[in-house]
């Protein structure tokens, strides 16, 4: 299990516990992650909005780095996955476009030939690693725990450009992983909706309403925690949870954990080593409920 590793800006900035957790989980599962430290930000859809070709060039540069190493690319961010996945879709589909983009990579000695696969850790676990193999590593099954999945838009839509034709059940992987670890997935309509983070600075009230609605719906299922593969969703759902509660005039106290943290807890890794003490909404009650 060797991957060119693209952790994304936010896991190295606003949610450092995600980076820590992935490192611990990767080691426990026997992953070899070659961190592409020279790779640039994906653009997160923001650069693509200014200049789509610029966004695709920065991502082609990253794909070329992975291709040079002969490795698939793994990320731990739904937003990075979606943006890179769409860029890769365009670059693979159109050799002429790739040639156009490659002329900007040439001065660095890079060329993207269109062979790199880009996969979120969530997809890697199900499609490459295998849930049965994952189960073999579980030391502390999450029995009796209910977890509310929250995907993040960019690993779901637009499905045509994100590999859903080949892997049509990618929109159920979080539930599959939760189940494989021994927990029960909560079902609620907001799990595939938007957390509101992209408009936090443009329309703060709407952003917090969106986060608040999904958190409340998840909390009302009786979930012990929410789990997300997207650090940007985490910034809103955990970081802004007190404000979201205030905007919606409700009581919210739902821990929001990152996907690698959930896996790590089930593998028996200590909560502190997974950064569970770094959350705005306390994860103590959740961690305490995990059977010893």
């Amino acid at each position, binding site marked *: 299990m060797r991957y060119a590793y693209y952790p994304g*800006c*936010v896991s*190295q*900035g*606003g*949610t*450092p*516990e995600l980076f820590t957790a992935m490192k611990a989980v990767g080691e426990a599962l026997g992953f070899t992650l070659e961190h592409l*430290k*020279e*790779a*640039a*930000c994906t*653009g*997160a*859809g*923001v*650069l*693509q*909005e*200014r*200049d789509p*070709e*610029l966004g695709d*060039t*920065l991502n082609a*540069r990253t794909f070329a780095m992975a291709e040079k190493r002969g490795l698939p690319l793994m990320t731990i961010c739904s937003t990075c996955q979606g943006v890179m996945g769409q860029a890769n879709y365009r670059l693979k589909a159109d050799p002429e476009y790739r040639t156009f983009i490659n002329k*900007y990579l040439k*001065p*660095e000695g890079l060329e993207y030939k269109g062979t790199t696969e880009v996969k979120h850790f969530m997809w890697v676990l199900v499609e490459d690693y295998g849930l049965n193999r994952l189960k073999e590593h579980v030391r502390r099954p999450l029995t009796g725990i209910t977890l509310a999945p929250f995907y993040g*838009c*960019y690993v*779901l*839509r*637009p*499905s045509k450009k994100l590999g859903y034709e080949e892997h049509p059940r990618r929109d159920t992987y979080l539930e599959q992983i939760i189940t494989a670890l021994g927990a029960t997935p909560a079902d609620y*309509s907001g799990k595939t*909706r*938007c957390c*509101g983070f*992209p*408009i936090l*600075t*443009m*329309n*703060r*009230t*709407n*952003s917090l*309403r*969106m986060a608040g*609605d999904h958190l409340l719906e998840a909390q009302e299922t009786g979930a012990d925690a929410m789990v997300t593969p997207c650090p940007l969703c985490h910034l809103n759902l955990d*970081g*802004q949870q*007190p*404000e979201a509660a205030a905007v919606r005039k409700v009581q919210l106290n739902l821990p929001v954990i990152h996907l690698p943290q959930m896996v790590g807890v089930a593998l028996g890794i200590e909560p502190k080593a997974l950064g569970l*003490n*770094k*959350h*705005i909404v306390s994860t103590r009650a959740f961690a305490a409920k995990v059977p010893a």
Partner: protein
Amino acid sequence: MKTVNLKVKRFDPATRKSKFQDYQVEVDDSAAVLDAIIEVREYQDETLAVRCSCRSAICGSCAMRVNGHAKLACMTKVSSVSPNGETIVVEPLGNAEPVKDLVADMGPFWAKVKQVQPWLKPSLPAPDREYIAPQEAMQDLVGAVNCIMCGACVSDCTVLEVDKNFIGPAALAKAYRFVGDPRETQTARDERLSQLSKYGGIWDCTHCYECVQVCPKDVAPMERILDIRRAAVAAGFRDNNGTRHSDSFARSVKHTGSLDEFRLLPESLGLDDIAAQLKFVPTALRAIAKGKVPSPLHHKRPGAEHVTRIFDEMEKE
């Protein structure tokens, strides 16, 4: 023939209450969801209200939610949403008040479309014959022109769920059809872009791709909203948090290779907007207490000079 189990959300206008009702019908193997609904209405329950017309994915009348997502019922095969005989849940469009059963009130939808003044405001005086536009100039508008106004995108819009003031994906895609039209006067175009840049307009879209996912005609309304954003910024409508956010984002990536999260928030809000900045102080203090505030010393990633070069070259072109 196959058996279809339908769970239909019914709305009674007399009591203003909704409830689900189950039906079972036999339909042809190649049937669409609309065929099954019509089968119910014609042979089991004539009180079931549904709006439809062409049955060929042209008129847009039969848009409704099928298993939670907006679709044209006439172009949605039963086999695609119920491959193993699962119950199909059918509801009226979201983000709209039901009139009866599967018929949604489209009044607010059309009001939003009218709000963007969906007509051409060409140069005067009028020419002797029709306005001529070069084909290549219109090519970009093909996507937006394909819209059949079915309301699927509005139904599943995540922003409209929390704010009815948002103009919404259908009306904004329609607005792009005129913003991008070369026959429109500069004054009219600027007036449009000015209006669309305000609260409730282009910068309120949250980039969730729901509208792109559900559009049956590949209009990709969100992409059209981004087209308008580009046009608005290029035309000088830059005094908004969306443009500031984009500028801050691009600046840090260009010079360091990565996003400078420490500067992004204050720069997006506007450094002189103290009231907006103060709203985020509690968030920042909580993050500091947990030791997770991004460093104010934003270091360059190795190889950042190549990122800067790519920006420079592409910006020049």
